[in-house]
C-alpha cells in the first residue's frame, strides 16, 4: 500500500479538508469544465468585464496622450524622476510572485493544498507581469526605442551596458514572463484535452483541440510531463527569487540615501510574496463565492494563505526595522537624515500609513476566527495590497525627494495621468482575469483528480 494520506478526510487536527468529500473523477471534471463550456456568462461576469474594459480604454487614452506629449504629463520632476511608473512596476511584479511560488515552490515541497489555487495564481502572475512590463517601457521617454536595451547587432555598433541593473531588469523580467507563460501553458495541456473532449460545439472543440496539441494521456507522455513539470518548478524557484532581487538591485546600485541597505534583496522578495498572496486571496474569495467552488477552494486554503500572509508580513516588518537600524548604526549623516525625513518629513503620513497597513493590520491573522472569516480576510488583503503599494511609494519618493543637498530637494505630486495609468493597468489585470475565467479552467482539473482517494493504486506500492 502506498503511504499517501487520504486528503479528503483532512489531517487529524480537525482542520478542514483540501477537497470536500463526495467527489469523483467525473464530478471534479464536470464541475470545473462546465464553468468554461456553459453557454453565455453570468450577468456579474459581464458587469465586471465591462468595468475593467472601460478602464483599459482609459489606459489607452492615457498612453496615447503620453506618446503625444511625453513624460511631462506625469508628476515626475528633477529630483523625483521615478514616480508612479517605478512604484507601480515594482508593485505589479511583486504581486506576480505568489503565483510562481504556489506553483513551483509548493510543488517541490509536495504541498497538496496548492492544487486548487495554482492555476489562477499562475494566470495572475502572467497578467501582473504584463501590467508591470508596461511601466518601464512607457517610462523611457522614447518608448519606441525600447529595443536599444536588448543586445542586437545595431548599425551604431554599440552594445547595452551589461553592468547596468536596468539591463539586468530587461533580462530578468522577460525571462520571468516567458518561463511563467511556459509553466502555465504546460499545466493547461491536459485540461485543454478535457475541454476538447467535453465541448459540444464545433468551434470550441477545434480551438481547444489545437491548443491541446493532440494530448491523449498516454503513460509515456504523463511520465515525461511529470519530469518536465518538476524540472520547470526547480528552475522557476530560483528564478522568482532572482527577479525581485534584480528589481531591488535597481535601487541598491544607486547612490541615493535609503536605497542601499543589504537587506534589500530578501526584503523585496518577502514583500513580493506578501503582496502576491494578498492578491491571490482577493481573487480567490470572490471566485469561490460566485462560482460555488467552496468544495475545491476550502477554508483550509484560505487559512494556509492567511498564515503565509502573516509570516511574510513579519519578514517585511523585520526589513523596516533593519532599515531604521542601519540608518542609525551606519553613522552616515545622509542615511540618518533620510530616515528622519521619512518618519517626520512631508511624506511621514505615507510611512505611518504603511506601518498601519503592513505591521498592525496583519496581526489580526493570529486569531483563527479572523482566518476563517472570508470577509475579514478579503478586507485584510485589500489593506495589505494598499500597504505594499505605499511601501514602494515610500522607498521611491522619500529617498529621491531628499538626497544629499537641500538645493536638490523637491516634492512629488502625481497628476491625473499618473492615476489614470495606474487605474488603467488595474483594469487590464482584471480584464485579462475575467477573460481567463471565462475561457480556461481556473482550477487544474487533472491535478484535482490526483488528490481524490480513488486515484490511489492498490497493491502496487513503491515504498
Amino acid at each position, binding site marked *: 500500500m502506498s503511504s499517501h494520506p487520504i486528503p479528503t478526510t483532512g489531517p487529524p487536527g480537525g482542520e478542514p479538508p483540501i477537497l470536500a468529500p463526495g467527489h469523483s473523477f467525473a464530478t471534479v471534471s464536470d464541475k470545473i469544465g462546465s464553468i468554461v463550456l456553459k453557454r453565455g456568462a453570468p450577468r456579474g461576469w459581464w458587469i465586471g468585464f465591462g468595468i475593467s474594459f472601460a478602464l483599459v480604454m482609459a489606459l489607452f487614452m492615457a498612453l496615447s496622450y503620453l506618446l503625444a506629449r511625453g513624460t511631462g504629463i506625469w508628476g515626475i520632476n528633477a529630483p523625483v524622476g521615478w514616480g508612479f511608473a517605478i512604484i507601480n512596476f515594482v508593485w505589479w511584479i511583486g504581486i506576480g510572485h505568489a503565483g510562481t511560488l504556489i506553483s513551483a515552490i509548493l510543488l517541490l515541497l509536495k504541498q497538496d493544498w496548492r492544487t486548487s489555487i495554482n492555476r489562477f495564481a499562475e494566470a495572475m502572475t502572467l497578467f501582473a507581469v504584463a501590467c508591470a512590463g508596461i511601466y518601464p517601457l512607457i517610462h523611457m521617454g522614447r518608448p519606441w526605442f525600447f529595443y536599444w536595451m536588448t543586445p542586437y547587432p545595431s548599425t551604431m555598433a554599440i552594445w547595452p551596458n551589461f553592468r547596468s541593473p536596468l539591463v539586468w531588469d530587461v533580462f530578468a523580467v522577460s525571462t520571468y514572463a516567458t518561463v511563467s507563460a511556459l509553466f502555465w501553458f504546460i499545466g493547461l495541456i491536459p485540461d485543454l484535452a478535457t475541454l476538447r473532449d467535453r465541448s459540444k460545439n464545433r468551434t470550441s472543440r477545434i480551438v481547444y483541440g*489545437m491548443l491541446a496539441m493532440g494530448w491523449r494521456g498516454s503513460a509515456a507522455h504523463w511520465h515525461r510531463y511529470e519530469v518536465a513539470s518538476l524540472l520547470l518548478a526547480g528552475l522557476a524557484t530560483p528564478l522568482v527569487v532572482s527577479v525581485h532581487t534584480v528589481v531591488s538591485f535597481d535601487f541598491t546600485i544607486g547612490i541615493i540615501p535609503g536605497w542601499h541597505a543589504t537587506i534589500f534583496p530578501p526584503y523585496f522578495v518577502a514583500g513580493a510574496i506578501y503582496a502576491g498572496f494578498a492578491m491571490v486571496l482577493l481573487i480567490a474569495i470572490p471566485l469561490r463565492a460566485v462560482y460555488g467552488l467552496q468544495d475545491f477552494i476550502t477554508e483550509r486554503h484560505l487559512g494556509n494563505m492567511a498564515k503565509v500572509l502573516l509570516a511574510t508580513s513579519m519578514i517585511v516588518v523585520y526589513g523596516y526595522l533593519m532599515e531604521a537600524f542601519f540608518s542609525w548604526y551606519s553613522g552616515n549623516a545622509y542615511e540618518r537624515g533620510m530616515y528622519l525625513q521619512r518618519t517626520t518629513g512631508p511624506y511621514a503620513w505615507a510611512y505611518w500609513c504603511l506601518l498601519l497597513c503592513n505591521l498592525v493590520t496583519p496581526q489580526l491573522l493570529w486569531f483563527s476566527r479572523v482566518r476563517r472569516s472570508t470577509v475579514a480576510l478579503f478586507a485584510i488583503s485589500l489593506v495589505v495590497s494598499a500597504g505594499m503599494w505605499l511601501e514602494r511609494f515610500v522607498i521611491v519618493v522619500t529617498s529621491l525627494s531628499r538626497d544629499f543637498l537641500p538645493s536638490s530637494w523637491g516634492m512629488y505630486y502625481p497628476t491625473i495621468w499618473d492615476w489614470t495609468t495606474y487605474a488603467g493597468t488595474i483594469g487590464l489585470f482584471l480584464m485579462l482575469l475575467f477573460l481567463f475565467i471565462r475561457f480556461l479552467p481556473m482550477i487544474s482539473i487533472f491535478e484535482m483528480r490526483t488528490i481524490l482517494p480513488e486515484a490511489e493504486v492498490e497493491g502496487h506500492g513503491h515504498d
Partner: protein
Amino acid sequence: MATTETPLYGLMAEFYDPTSLVNAAQKANEAGYRVMDGYSPFPIEELGEALGYRTRGRLPRIVFLGGLIGCVGGFGLQYWCAVIDYPIIVGGKPLNSWPMWIPVTFEMTILVASLAAVLGMLALNGLPRPYHPVFNVPEFRLASRDKFFLCIEAKDPKFDLDQTRQFLEKLSPGHVYEVES
C-alpha cells in the same frame, strides 16, 4: 473484400479505476506484450513500471544541456560585447567585470533550460500531433475525464486479433474496442 477493410491499429480495453489498469498492464507485460500503451486522465506513477518502461528518460539531460548552453551563451555574449567587440571602461571597472554579469548569465541559464524542458517534453512525446488512431474510438474521449484504457497495438509481434481479444476479455474490462488506424 479483405483489401478494403481499414487496417487495425490495435485493441483497446476500458477500465473504471487506476488499479485495474495497472493490474491489466502488468498482466499484459507478463504475457509478453510489448507494443502497448496505457491512457489515463491523470499521471499514474505505477503505470510506467507495469508497462515495462524504463523509468529514466532523456529529458533531464536535455534540460541540463539547455541550461549549459544558456549559461555559456549568456556569459559569452557579455564577454564578447564588453571585452572584444566594444571595449570601453565604465566607472573604472575592469573590462572583464564578471561579477556584474552574473544576473544576465543566470537569467539566460534559466530561460534556455526552461525552453528545453517544455520543447523537449513536447518533442519526445511527439506533440503536437493532430491525428492519432486512438481517437477513432468514440468512448476514448472519456480518457480525459474518468476512464482508463489499455491499448495493445497491432504492431506487437504477439498480436493476434482473436487471441489478444480473449486475453483482454479475461482482464475483466468494461469493454474491448477495435481501434481503426
